[in-house]
C-alpha cells in the first residue's frame, strides 16, 4: 500500500467570514486548501473545536460550496462545541474532517419536479441542493420543473431565505404564523397545493416522519437526511446507526450507518 491510497484527512481550514444570520444562527465560510473533492449537497464535515477537552468533531452539513475550495456552513449554536466554534474569527484557522457522507442523489433528480423541504436548522443543506438542481436543469425544463422550496421557521427570525430565491421558488411556513403559512412545511405544501415528483427533506425528526408518510401516501420518491450522535464520522465506530426496513449490505442487521450510508436515505428504507 502506498501513500496514494490516502484520500481523506483532517484538514486545516481558514475562516474567511463568520457572521450571525439570525439569533443563534451563524454562517461560517471556510477556505480548505486540501479539500479532496467537490461537495455534494447533503454531505457534511466534522468541525473540531479548539478545546482540548472536546475530542469529537461536530457534524455540520455543507450549506454551500464555491470555487477555490471554499465551503460554507450554517449552524445553530446548540451547546458547548458550537459555542466554541462560534468564537472563530476571520483569519483564524480551524480543522475539519471530511468530506463525509453520501448526499442527495442530484443526478437522479435532474429535470424532475423536486420539492425541497427544510425545517429549522435543516434548511442550510437545502441551499446547495437548490443551487445544483437549478444549475442542472436545462432551459425548458427549468421553467416547467422549477425547484420548489418550502422553508419552515419558528418565527419571523428567518435566515438564508433571500439566497434560496436565487435558485428556487420559495414558500415559507412559520410556527407562529408571523410569515407565510402558519404551521410546518407540510401545512404549507398542502395549503399551497404544491405537487412534485420527488421530495428532498431535512429537519427535525417529527417533520421527517410526517414527510415520509406524506410521500408514501402520494407515491413519490422521498429522500431525507437523518441526524444521530456521531463519534468517528467515517463508519468505523457504529455509533450513528439508523434502523432500516431491510438488512443492509454492511451491517447484516437492520442497522445502517448514518455517517457513511447516509445521512441522506431513501425514506422508504429507513425505519424512523
Amino acid at each position, binding site marked *: 500500500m502506498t501513500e496514494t491510497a490516502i484520500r481523506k484527512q483532517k484538514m486545516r481550514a481558514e475562516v474567511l467570514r463568520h457572521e450571525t444570520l439570525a439569533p443563534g444562527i451563524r454562517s461560517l465560510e471556510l477556505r480548505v486548501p486540501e479539500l479532496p473533492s467537490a461537495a455534494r449537497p447533503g454531505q457534511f464535515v466534522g468541525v473540531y473545536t479548539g478545546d482540548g477537552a472536546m475530542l469529537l468533531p461536530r457534524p455540520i452539513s455543507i450549506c454551500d460550496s464555491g470555487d477555490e475550495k471554499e465551503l460554507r456552513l450554517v449552524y445553530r449554536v446548540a451547546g458547548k462545541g458550537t459555542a466554541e466554534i462560534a468564537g472563530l474569527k476571520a483569519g483564524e484557522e480551524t480543522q475539519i474532517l471530511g468530506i463525509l457522507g453520501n448526499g442527495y442523489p442530484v443526478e437522479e433528480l435532474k429535470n424532475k419536479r423536486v420539492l425541497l423541504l427544510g425545517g429549522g436548522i435543516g434548511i442550510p443543506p437545502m441551499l446547495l441542493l437548490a443551487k445544483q438542481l437549478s444549475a442542472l436543469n436545462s432551459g425548458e425544463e427549468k421553467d416547467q420543473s422549477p425547484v420548489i422550496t418550502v422553508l419552515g421557521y419558528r418565527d419571523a427570525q428567518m435566515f438564508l431565505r433571500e439566497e434560496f430565491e436565487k435558485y428556487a421558488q420559495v414558500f415559507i411556513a412559520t410556527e407562529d404564523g408571523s410569515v407565510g403559512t402558519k404551521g410546518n412545511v407540510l401545512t404549507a405544501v398542502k395549503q399551497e397545493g404544491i405537487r412534485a415528483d420527488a421530495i428532498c427533506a431535512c429537519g427535525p425528526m417529527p417533520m421527517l416522519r410526517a414527510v415520509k408518510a406524506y410521500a408514501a401516501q402520494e407515491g413519490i420518491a422521498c429522500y431525507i437526511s437523518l441526524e444521530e450522535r456521531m463519534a*468517528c464520522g*467515517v463508519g468505523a465506530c457504529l455509533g*450513528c446507526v439508523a434502523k432500516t426496513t431491510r438488512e443492509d449490505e454492511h451491517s447484516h*442487521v*437492520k442497522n445502517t450507518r448514518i455517517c457513511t450510508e447516509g445521512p441522506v436515505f431513501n425514506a422508504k428504507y429507513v425505519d424512523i
Partner: protein
Amino acid sequence: MNTDKNNIENMPDLSVEIGGVRLQNPVMTASGTFGSGMEYSDFVDLSKLGAVVTKGVSAVPWEGNPTPRVAETPSGMLNAIGLQNPGVEVFCERDLAFLSNYRTKAAADAVGDGPRVIVNVCGHTVEEYLEVVERLSDEPVDLLEINVSCPNVKAGAIQFGQNADSLMDVTQRIKRIAKQPVIMKLTPNVTDIAEMARAAEAGGADAVSLINTLLGMKIDVERRTFVLANRTGGLSGPAIRPVAVRMVYQAAQAVKIPVIGMGGIGSAEDALEFILAGATAVAVGCMTFHEPATAVSVIDGMKDYMIRHGIERISDLTGAVR
C-alpha cells in the same frame, strides 16, 4: 558512539513479540475504534501499523444497542455500541479478506511484515466464544483478543472479566481449542486488576490487553433523561489515561506474559507512558476519532523519541520506570 547513533537513526528497532508473533512496531488500533481497517484506509496507510485489531466479532450477527450510542464527555467519550457486528461468517469473507491484502502486499513488496491481524472475539456464553475461535482457526489471523470486558452487553461478557475464577476458566477453555495465540482483554471495573491479570495468565493466556472502558453514565439535565439509550456506557479517551497507566503498571508487575496497554493514547508521549509502565505494545482507541492519523503519528513520534534518547530497541523501554 557516533556510529551507534547513526545505526539508531537508520532504524531504531520498534519490533516486539507477542505470543510468538512478531509485530513490526508496538502500535495497534484498539478494538471497535477502527472498524476492520477499511474505513480508515482512506486516511492512513494501514501497512505502517503494528497490528489492526478488529471490532468484536460474534458467532452470529449482533444488532447492538439502540441509539444514542455515543456521548462526548470531558476529554473522553462514552459508548454503548453493544457489539453490533455482522457475525463471523461475513467477517471472514469481507473483513479478513480486505486485511489479508495488506499482508500479501507487504510480503510481495518486501517492505516489512505489514500489519498483523488481531481479531477481537465476543460472545454471551463461553460456547459462543468457542464457536468464533474455532471458526477462525484456519483464517489469516495472527492473534485472538478475547473481549471478556465489554460493559455494554447485558448478558455475560463482562462478568467473565470481573471474577478471577471464571476468567481463568474461560481462558483455559479458549486456549484448549485456539490455533492462534490468545490475548485476554481485561476490564478496569474491578477492585484488583493484578488478580485478574494473574487469572488470565494462570489460564494460559499468551498476553493480556487493558484497559477496556470504565463504566460511566451521562444525564441530560434539560430533558431529564439518560444521554445514552443504554443508560450506561463505556468511558474512554485521555480522561481515563491515568487509570489505564496505573492498571498496566500493576498488571505488568503481576504477570510475566506481555501486557498490551491502552486508554486515551493520543501521542507518542502517551504511548510511551504505557510502555515505560510495563506494556510491550499499545493500542490507539478513540483518539483516532479526534485525528485519524493518530496511530501513525504515534509510531513516528516513538521513533523520534528513541533516536533522541539513544534507544536501540523499544522493548528495552518496557517497564523501565518502576
